[in-house]
């Protein structure tokens, strides 16, 4: 039987560089969850539609299920585990989702948090329209989206007040 070729893959996740051994076909989502044990990144559809697996690569949101781990070596990857401070203080987007009841079952939440995080880092005063546009690639089957939109707006507000 053929054994599958393995590669040494360096992944820089939440500021820490780790080396994994995995085949080239290992999706970033599976590398994060399986090899690195970072199960905060959720896997829903595995073809880029649901948005649950969204992580940041060099600050930009991407689908980790449509990215091979080997193709993003040495890039800055940020996952939901990297949001809260070391002392446990919540990131503005986490605080806002909690306050605004922006989640119910929580399955889609990591994807929404990372998408919202990228948005408010680029633009901490987004309009309603910009918020809707930013989260349009993420699906939620519980909330009906209104609380999520409110949460993103509130997260931006917290981020603005943190700056002053």
């Amino acid at each position: 039987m053929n054994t599958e070729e393995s590669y040494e893959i360096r992944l820089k996740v939440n500021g820490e560089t780790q080396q994994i051994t995995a085949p080239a076909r290992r999706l970033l989502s599976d590398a994060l969850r399986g090899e690195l044990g970072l199960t905060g990144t959720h896997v829903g559809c595995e073809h880029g539609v649901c948005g649950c697996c969204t992580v940041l690569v060099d600050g930009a949101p991407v689908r980790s299920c449509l990215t091979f781990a080997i193709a993003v070596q040495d890039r800055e990857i940020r996952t939901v585990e990297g949001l809260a401070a070391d002392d446990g203080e919540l990131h503005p987007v986490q605080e806002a989702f909690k306050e605004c009841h922006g989640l119910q079952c929580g399955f889609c939440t990591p994807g929404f948090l990372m998408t919202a995080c990228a948005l408010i880092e680029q633009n901490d005063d987004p309009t309603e329209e910009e918020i809707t546009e930013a989260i349009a690639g993420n699906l939620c089957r519980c909330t009906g989206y209104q609380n999520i939109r409110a949460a993103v707006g509130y997260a931006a507000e917290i981020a603005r007040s943190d700056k002053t």
Partner: protein
Amino acid sequence: MKPSPFSYHPAASVDEAAQFLSELEDAKILAGGQSLIPLMNFRLASPTHLIDISGLAELSEIKVSESEVEIGASVTHSQVLQSEQVGSALPLLVEAERLIAHEVIRNRGTLCGSLAHADPAGEMTAVITVLNGRVNTASVSGGRTIEAADLFEGPLQSSLREDELIVSATFPKLGPRTVSSFREVARRHGDYAVAGAVSVVEYDNDDQVHSARAAFLSVGPVPTLVSFDDLLRGNRIEDVGHNEVYNFLSSQLEPHGDLQASADYRRHLSAEMGWASLEACI
């Protein structure tokens, strides 16, 4: 829902990528992977080798000249969308980019990848068709230019040879007195369009139509180009009006039916999108 095994070859140059393509059996180019990886996850594609060109600096350029905009093969949709140079030289490209999927997909997907993927529902296939653009390729036997009219052979089938990769796509800028517009209908924001049209209208010195054409997406195996010259030349679009344009397009377009829309409904939508994109050029 996981890709099948493959060997990974990061190319250090275009020459090396071409070399890999000529030497390796059943190899595919990986740039952003936003069309290829879903196909691989579904195992609709299972290449033995992937040649990664996403890191190639020589393919990462956007060049704007007097008459053309050239987009390198590793330039992402987001980079095109955010390029002020492109925005002022050829706003149609930016207008089309806004309609492509969501930001999260545009952050990795590449414009040239969309062309190589040759999906007739893809916005860029219609844009390069209506603009009479071209792609520039490389291979071990030398590069060539493929005109848009010769690029698409069927759904997900381009005329690229197996040993050939796209290095850039070139879009002619619009001339003076020329206007363009893109209109499409999708079931949800960011989905593939059920129907869509991109029009280019050139006016004469009396503000009457000199020449007009539209490319339609999602109506056939390849993007469909329709000329309005016989209908509109020497006239104003508003004088010819919705009904004549609609009827003309209904007779020209032969879309297929699928789960999203019957053939008749898609013909109706396409004709309406054709009119809407023309009307936006008034």
